[in-house]
């Protein structure tokens, strides 16, 4: 497609120094951050261009097809949060692990509700593309946002970002739906996601904002194998 154009961009990521600085001399108490990550950036608006293309991939034909998508989205979100929890646990960050576990349960409950509502005995198979603003489902969190020293605040930021994406996704769907059942379902889902957004915003208010040095680790990474 646009090979010519992209050649000119020649946009290889600048190869700046990274974790090296923090590993350089272990005994040096460095106030420098490990730079291993900037704060999770989920709150930032995604800049991608491929994103919007994916949103169009989804005029849904029937209400039950719509619910199958909704189910897949929720289930995937639940699974992703559970993976996050495992990863945090492995890295001795139990507080955030617990939080992700909670978020996973919330999403799973949502998925289960859909099953119940539809009277489905088994998970429906959704084949359609429900990517939204990116390469993943509207409610699926981006794994590269994680950091082993992240705090509940960061985790909630990630959750907030995804709930908002889910809300907007359903709003969009309601707008473009041609089928009345689908529109109704989408509006309901939008309301629920909006409620989640409010909930997490509340939760965030009660959560301490991390200090500027939250990702400081004076020890170098461990090497192996």
């Amino acid at each position: 497609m646009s090979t010519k154009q992209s050649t000119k961009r020649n946009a290889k990521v600048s190869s700046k120094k990274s974790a090296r600085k923090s590993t350089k001399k272990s005994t040096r108490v460095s106030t420098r951050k490990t730079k291993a990550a900037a704060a999770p950036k989920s709150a930032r608006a995604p800049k991608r261009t491929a994103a919007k293309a994916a949103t169009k991939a989804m005029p849904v034909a029937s209400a039950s097809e719509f619910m199958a998508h909704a189910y897949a989205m929720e289930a995937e979100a639940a699974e992703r949060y559970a993976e996050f929890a495992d990863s945090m646990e492995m890295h001795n960050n139990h507080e955030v692990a617990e939080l992700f576990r909670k978020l996973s349960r919330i999403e799973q409950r949502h998925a289960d509700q859909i099953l119940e509502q539809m009277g489905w005995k088994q998970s429906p198979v959704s084949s359609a593309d429900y990517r939204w603003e990116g390469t993943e489902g509207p409610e699926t969190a981006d794994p590269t946002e994680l950091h082993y020293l992240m705090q509940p605040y960061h985790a909630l930021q990630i959750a907030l970002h995804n709930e908002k994406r889910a809300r907007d996704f359903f709003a969009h769907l309601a707008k473009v739906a041609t089928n009345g059942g689908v529109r109704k379902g989408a509006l309901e889902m939008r309301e629920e996601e909006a409620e989640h957004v409010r909930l997490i915003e509340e939760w965030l208010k009660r959560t301490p904002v991390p200090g500027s040095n939250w990702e400081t680790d004076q020890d170098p990474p461990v090497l192996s194998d």
Partner: protein
Amino acid sequence: MSRAKEKDKASISLVLTGSGGAGVMTAGNLLLEVAAQAGWYGLMVRSSGPQIRGGEAAALLRLAHAPVECLDDRFDVLIGIDWQNIHRFADEIPLDGASLMIGDPDQSEPPEVFVKRGARYAPLPFKQMAKAIPGSWPNMIALGLAAGLVGLPADSVKSVLQNSLKKGGGEKMAANLAAAEAGYAFAANVPAVPRLSGRAAHRAGRDARWLITGNQAAGHGAVRGGVRFCAAYPITPATEVLEWLAPALPKIGGALVQAEDELASINMIIGASYGGVPSVTATAGPGLSLMTEAIGLAVAAEVPIVVIDVMRGGPSTGIPAKSEQSDVNIALNGLHGDAPRIVVAPNSIADCVAATQWAVYLAEATQSPAIVLSDQYFGQTRAVVDPPADIGLITERLKPSATAEAYKRYAITESGISPMAIPGMPGTAYTADGLEHNERGLPSSQSGDHIRQLDKRAKKLAQFDYGARWADIEGEGELAVVTFGSCTGAAREALARAAAEGIKARLLSLRLLSPAQPERVAAALAGAKQVLVVEQNHTGQLYRYLRAEYDLPGEVKSFRHPGPLPMRPGEIHQQITAWSRL
């Protein structure tokens, strides 16, 4: 009498643990620096979980007024900035009723395994205390606490910390100095731990000593021996040798190249050395395995090279970041054909300098490959040592005289060593070859040439005068402990304890493992009735080698266990006392 009850001790052992950015390694290293600054000696072993970031970690320290070479049998103090998964280190952290645990009650209770051993517990709210001093870190409180507990001077803490923070940009200086001070003051509130007996051998801030790891030491020894080229492929736990050499070599006119794999790195250094530049590579078991074919090439083509093998748990990928002396077999036997080679094993962190330098010297003098058997314990342990003296051994390769006629690269000589022409020298061009060859270096499959060349290569190593450096021989008695490498420190300490109990025994720590030195060993063990062979591997690789190569006197026993647990002085001491009582 239980050692734990003694009021004053020759050494104090403590552990700092924590996870996920607690900074225990940093605090541990600083504590070691404080001890060094105060005129003490000490060492720090690091242990970590498998996670690359955020894993549980332990800095195991032993501090003393005199040099220490190994960890003690137990720990006096365990400071947990947090306890997350620290129970996984239980085997590595022996505690008993006399030990003291200090932990943050806001995090969790100390792990059950440690409590069960009867260790006392004192709470200290690290996180809260750090919070009360904005900008400070809990590990700095732990640093101050540890220093205060063991009786290190507050001035030394301050000056080391100031220095370190300055290098890091000077941020948070005041806060962290205050945190260390608060920790230091808190030491008065927890149950006392034993103090060091006697006085520090050095005055604070005076008298040169080095703070060095065995990996840095090995790199330094190589350079002292004349090495100017290194090609290598990163591997745990040898990478720090390379990290030290990478900036060092260019400074002295040399270079380090990161090769695409060990097949490449070993062949690169053979090429460089063929070109006349003394060369080294550093690796661990998996890499050494890959290199064996080419080490054989260096034997046959008579190209001097040095391979530093920092041993880790094997076989295969094994236990990468833990120590084990299990590459003895491959170092001694791991080449095809009849392939004599030099194998040198340093027996202390400081000796990594001298032994590696000696290996370069031997390789260059005999035009042979030399393997340096270091291990992860030496390589990654940081210790305060007296500055290792330059052993002064640096050799010029035997080269043909400019007027030599009909140059024969592999000439049969009295010593077995033949003049080696360096590319660029006129009139002496030859082809170095792994194919069997005649004296001129031309390929030959004739039995006469093969036998003459085999004899020559064996003879040059057998006849070389290795001098007194081949082993460390200490003490006397009818019981002899024979060991090598990092078990030496523990054995030495075990013998000292036995001596204090009136048990006489001698130590033979082999620095030269290959070629075998039957006469010297016979002399060193003359009159011994019991020989205890101590090593850290599963099959008794040294023991088997000794039995194959030497007529050991009296009764011979093998005492061994594999890594990752270190060989401790107590277990060797127990072997000695049990056996000597018979």
